[in-house]
């Protein structure tokens, strides 16, 4: 009976690897039927120039994958070989091995330190090195996104390039950014914690009331994707959905002017609904 159980434990690495590999390659065999797994189960499409987070994920996936398969296979072999019902050899009476302990302390320590140091630059790039202008000055934000139960308020500076002046453009849940440019966004919250999550841009930042924060990314693909709220913000959390549209420069300018004109017209016709 022991052999049956050891095979049950062998299925863990086999099905684990199978799940990951088939997800990466869209090989789900159960397409169609009640449990149809459609394609694209891995990362949402990567729409930014910065591949380093995905790359780092794969580095860790391969490193941990080796350990996962290794320990799973060793556990299976030990259970198969040392099943009490079939193993005729006497028990190895051992309390441990100093040399082995040293080896299996140092090896993981080296690998873990490697991962730790290897990723520091990516972290600094994502959170500490804010993009600069050609003259070395810190790049000003394209717009401000303010989280509020349960909507994203977006505010673009007007002609004067400064926020909170009368010529600002106010939009709800519809963020537009130009393609092929470092985008800096200022984020704030009016009420509770939210989390500004752009799955396709690999950006996520909690929006904390009382704090002003900046996120940045470099979109390279035109198209529309989601702004998700990733921090529980109340009963309507699930519907706090925005859209981010990446346009080419000309299209962005056209959209901006149209949206601005639209705002001015509506202010004219509905004066009580100003900001």
């Amino acid at each position, binding site marked *: 009976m022991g052999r049956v159980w050891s095979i049950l434990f062998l299925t*863990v690495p086999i*099905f684990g690897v199978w799940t990951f590999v088939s997800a990466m390659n869209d090989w789900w065999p159960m397409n169609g039927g009640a449990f149809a797994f459609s394609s694209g189960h891995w990362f949402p499409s990567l729409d930014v120039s910065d591949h380093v987070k995905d790359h780092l994920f794969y580095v860790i996936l391969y490193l941990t994958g080796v350990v996962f398969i290794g320990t799973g296979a060793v556990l299976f072999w030990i259970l198969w070989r*040392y099943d009490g019902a079939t193993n005729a050899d006497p028990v190895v009476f051992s309390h*441990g091995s100093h040399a082995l302990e040293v080896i299996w302390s140092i090896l*993981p320590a080296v690998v873990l330190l490697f991962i730790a140091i290897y990723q520091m630059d990516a972290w600094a790039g*994502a959170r500490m090195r804010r993009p600069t202008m050609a003259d070395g000055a810190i790049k000003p934000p394209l717009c401000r996104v303010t989280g509020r139960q349960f909507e994203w308020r977006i505010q673009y500076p007007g002609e004067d390039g400064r926020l909170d002046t009368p010529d600002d453009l106010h939009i709800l849940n519809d963020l537009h950014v130009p393609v092929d440019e470092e985008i800096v966004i200022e984020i704030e919250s009016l009420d509770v*914690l939210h989390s500004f999550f752009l799955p396709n841009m690999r950006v996520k930042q909690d929006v904390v009331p009382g704090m002003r924060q900046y996120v940045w990314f470099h979109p390279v693909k035109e198209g529309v994707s989601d702004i998700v709220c990733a921090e529980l913000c109340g*009963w309507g*959390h699930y519907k706090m959905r925005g859209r981010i549209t990446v346009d080419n420069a000309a299209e962005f300018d056209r959209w901006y002017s149209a949206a601005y004109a639209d705002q001015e017209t509506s202010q004219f016709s509905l004066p009580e609904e100003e900001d």
Partner: protein
Amino acid sequence: MSTTTIDSHTQAAADEMTVGHFLSTYVFSKDHKVIGIQFLFSTLIWFVVGGMLALGIRWQLAWPWSDMPIIGGMLFPEQGGQIAPEFYTVLVTMHATVMIFLVIIPILAGAFGNFLIPLMIGADDMAFPTLNMLSYWFMWPAFFFFGGAFFCDGHGAAAGWTSYPPLSDMTTSAPSSGAAQTLWLLGVTTVGISSMLGSVNYMTTIIQMRAPGMTMFRLPLTIWAMFITALLQAFALPVLTAAGFMMLADRLIGTGFFLPEGLVVNNSPMAAGGGQPLLWQHLFWFYSHPAVYIMILPAMGMVSDILACFSRKPIFGYKPMVYSICGIAGLGFIVWGHHMFVSGMNPGLGMTFMVATMMIALPSAVKTFNWLGTVYGGKVQFTTPMLFALSFVSMFVIGGLSGIFMAATPVDIVIHDTYFIVAHFHYVLFAGTAMAVFGSIYFWFPKMFGRMMNETAGKIHFALTFIFLNGTFFTMHILGVGGFPRRLADPYHYPTFSHLLTMNQFMTVCAICMVAVQIIFAVNFFYSIFWGPKAGRNPWRANGLEWQAPSPPGHGNFDFQPIVYRGPYEYGSPETEEDFYPQTMPPKQDRDNLA
């Protein structure tokens, strides 16, 4: 303890079967074994509640906004049997709260800690029996507070189990931010009091009341783990309790510890200000990260004992195992910030926490390799407790490795608050700890009730649970990498996640099966308490002191004075003909001298 006291005690018990006697023996008992079993029954009942809440979550994720079969009409008549989004946030909050505060922590520390510590160290009871009784009875206010929250406005607390302010801090921010949230805070505080009373007791008992010969390095790893867990609780819990009182003050008397200036929530401006929401996160995780180890270390200890017993071989690397328990606990205090990589905390601080977090994987790896080393070269007996213990090792590898992804700060930006983290902690806490708890129940059941559980039913329970839990939780990794956020009532609202519906349906079917399989366990458990075959003192032929006491032990535990001659893992020793060598058996030359 001499035999005469035991006899006179049982005699007295037979003589006075009065109501007062019944209450003092079975209800307000100061006997650590009765208290342990009280904890066990209470937590198993809450385990059912927590499991049902989980099925509610899974139902919504698989068939969003559809009528729940059978119970939906009874629970939510006003929505026609659907789960409302308000209630969905209650489900996620209360599922986690119940599982963490009312199941995992009390079943490990309360049930197994109480039952095993005096027995395994050769003491007749805890150092402070009255305090011990109180540690159980302080769970009851918590039961009432958490349970009562379901009957308040909003039908339960709904700010997440982490209760991040301002959402949790203001009484107007959501339908259930009123009394339900206040009760939640009071519940957490009283659970804390219970744990605190327990931890003081465990530390004193383990330091002071060991049997002659039981040196610290002859303690079973279960006891080492319980000891370090008690230390963690003693040092980390006051921080959470203090934070809880600060939040109560914010909510009830208008202070503003966690509220910045100028908030307007639900169109009502907040009077208080000058605080900082991130402060709560620091205080909360300063307790709750060590609490993660409170929820796994005792399981690691118990698994070590079970693995050695059924491999018929000593623990491989006993001292490295002890040091890695201490290492995990020590590092556990300086890694709380890894829950806050995307919280807005200073990114420079993120680097420090990241390196510390990476290093905590090291003692965990050492433990895993030592478990494999323990089974290697043995004669493995595939009993039910052994299968659960092996599955702990197998599953803990997955939970531990997926933790490395979250520790890597840039990767965490992508997978934080997605189902990847949900997969990670369910592998550690359900596939790990809960499986270890099942194994421990099967293992120590004969000591608790004097009878054996049915092995065949146990193995069926194991195999089905193992298959369905992997079906449920492994797929969550894929969801998480796809960006699927946690705590979202309807993620398909977002086109990015709409294709993940079928995968969720597969997981929900697995989850329903997994819960259904637990009926086998429940039937086996209750049947065996009354009608299982009688167990002798040492049915598993194990070495520990607890197996030298009668099954079940009477008041005062041992019918002889245990004297300890060796460590607890001398299986297959060449010094004896038997393959086990109980801690109380005198060495061979002593026995020869006596003879």
